């Protein structure tokens, strides 16, 4: 049964151990999680773009996107910014502590469908982690895709997540990677400006490119505006939408936009689908 978490219950999570905690920024950490139950772990699979409902017992539950490659089967990553009750409680956890996980939930990014296309990623701040769960498997199957262009923007150099991974991306010569910050600092010698300013520095053929974007709503709006101006078709712009979520399984009502539920119809939407939504996102 879908969403039964291996225990037959829609709302009762599986236990997972925090096997590793990595500091990303002053307010963001990556948690590597491993299911306690051997059978459940062996059978667990997910797809890029899906998410989990993560429980810190006593604090509550909140949704987070998978941040690691689905090809990694033993454990997975979520990268989480501390903003409130659940996220702060999670940040107070130590390696070895147990949390609850329900998932995988939601739809996913297209993968096979975009093979052969050039791929453009536009990530903002904490929007990079869900894209990483797609970038990594694409790099693992590099020859199946055309150009891979990754644009990443953050508020300041210190706000960038995965700093060592970014250095690796910079070194690769089979991808085009650029990053920018809204406000630089003394040591920053890279681009300064919002992420859309990087569009001027690349040339893409919109007819053979699929763009993936993830970030704060305001960034997504500007990115889509520019992509449309560049000549992208609505079907070739893929974004994730964020809505306040509770159940993650289409029952509590919180995440509805019009008659669509971000938790089950999304979180991945093409711009064509977003345009058809009967409510502001």
């Amino acid at each position, binding site marked *: *049964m879908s969403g039964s978490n291996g225990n037959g219950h829609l709302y009762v999570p599986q236990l997972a151990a925090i096997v590793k905690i990595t500091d990303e920024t002053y307010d963001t950490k990556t948690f590597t999680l491993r299911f306690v139950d051997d059978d459940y772990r062996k059978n667990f699979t997910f797809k890029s773009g899906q998410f989990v409902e993560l429980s810190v*017992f006593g604090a509550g*539950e909140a949704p987070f996107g998978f941040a690691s490659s689905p090809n990694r089967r033993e454990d997975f990553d979520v990268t989480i910014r501390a903003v409130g009750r659940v996220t702060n409680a999670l940040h107070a956890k130590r390696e070895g502590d147990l949390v609850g996980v329900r998932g995988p939930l939601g739809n996913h990014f297209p993968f096979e469908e975009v093979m052969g296309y050039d791929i453009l990623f536009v990530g903002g701040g904490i929007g990079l982690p869900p894209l990483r769960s797609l970038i990594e498997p694409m790099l693992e199957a590099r020859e199946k895709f055309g150009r891979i262009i990754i644009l990443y923007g953050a508020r300041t150099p210190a706000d960038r997540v995965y700093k060592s991974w970014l250095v690796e991306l910079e070194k690769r010569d089979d991808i085009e990677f650029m990053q920018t910050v809204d406000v630089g600092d003394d040591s920053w010698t890279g681009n300064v400006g919002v992420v859309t300013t990087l569009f001027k520095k690349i040339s893409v053929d919109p007819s053979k490119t699929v763009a993936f974007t993830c970030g704060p709503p305001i960034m997504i709006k500007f990115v*889509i505006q520019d992509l449309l101006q560049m000549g992208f078709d609505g079907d070739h712009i893929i974004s994730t939408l964020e809505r*306040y979520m509770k159940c993650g399984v289409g029952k*509590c009502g*919180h995440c509805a936009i019009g008659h669509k539920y971000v938790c089950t119809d999304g979180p991945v939407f093409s711009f064509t689908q977003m345009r058809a939504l*009967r*409510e502001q996102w």
Partner: protein
Amino acid sequence: MNVGDKLSAPKDQILKALDRLRKNWKIVGPTEGPDGEVIFREIESSDEITFNYVNELDPIKRFLAPPTEELFRFRTNGEVKLELPEPPPRQILFGIRSCDVKGIQHWDKFYSGKFVDDAYFARRNNTVLISLACNEPLETCFCICTDTGPFLEEGDGYDVQLTDLGERFLVEIGSERGLQVLEEAGFKAEAASAEELAKRDELMRQCDTKFETTAFMAKGIVQMTNGRVRDSLWEEMGHECFSCGACTHLCPMCTCFDVQDVMEAEDCGRRERCWDSCQYAGYTREASGHNPRAATGSRIQRRFYHKLSFAYIKQDGHHGCVGCGRCIIACEAIGLLDLPAVLKRLRREGQPVEVTQVPTE
């Protein structure tokens, strides 16, 4: 006895059957409250039942989805341990009205599908619905406009439907579950006579003529589907609304809930869900502080989009109102924002308005 049978029995036979079932079932029935109002509650004996009622203000859904419901308990000392709540008791909801049965039928559909809400069905699968058709509507009732009463027909979701024929009940067996419970009670009755069946239809026709409230459902559906309502009307309604959530809490069709953890000691607690309302400002507030429905009017628009748009009708198989009239009684903005009142206001809205498309900011 068979499913589909229409039987006739003296009223006290039904009540005696109920008393016999009390041993193995929790019986919930209509009783008289301190101010003469009707309250559905667990009864010890059928003597407590009143038949002097049309409907209770509190929605019957509370017996299937309590306002606060434990999902599981957790212990966090050393190892984390999760425990499920006790299985809910077998229960009979006796004397509930047609509109509430239709509401429950909606919940059954909504809570199944790809993700089955096992917490809901733990109660639901242990519940028998014995409904009582309405010979008299309240002045606030309008199930005649929503096609959810005053009498139910086969397939409408009742296990047993009773009709008050005066001295006797007409007993219609609607499901296997209904049949089983009557058999378990040792209930015996003869087939209803042709006159009794004719009387049922006559009572139904008479009731149809007694409705005082109208809801312009058809026009409302058109308006909410085409988005022909000017934004300023929603804004006006926003100024009138107290965002109290009474309309949604009492609505038999509204299903929304919130989830929270409650600690009972340092190392144990429970996760529970509780009724929530799309009329509350915090309902859609995201962790970033961004709130797509910050304006009160946009939340009222949401309520009616969900209840009436064709997109939802297609998804759910029906619109989101059973005509019980509870929101008319409960709404603090008296007479302005209940469903029939809003439909009255939408009816006069005319011009097509272009649906705003993003990104425009």
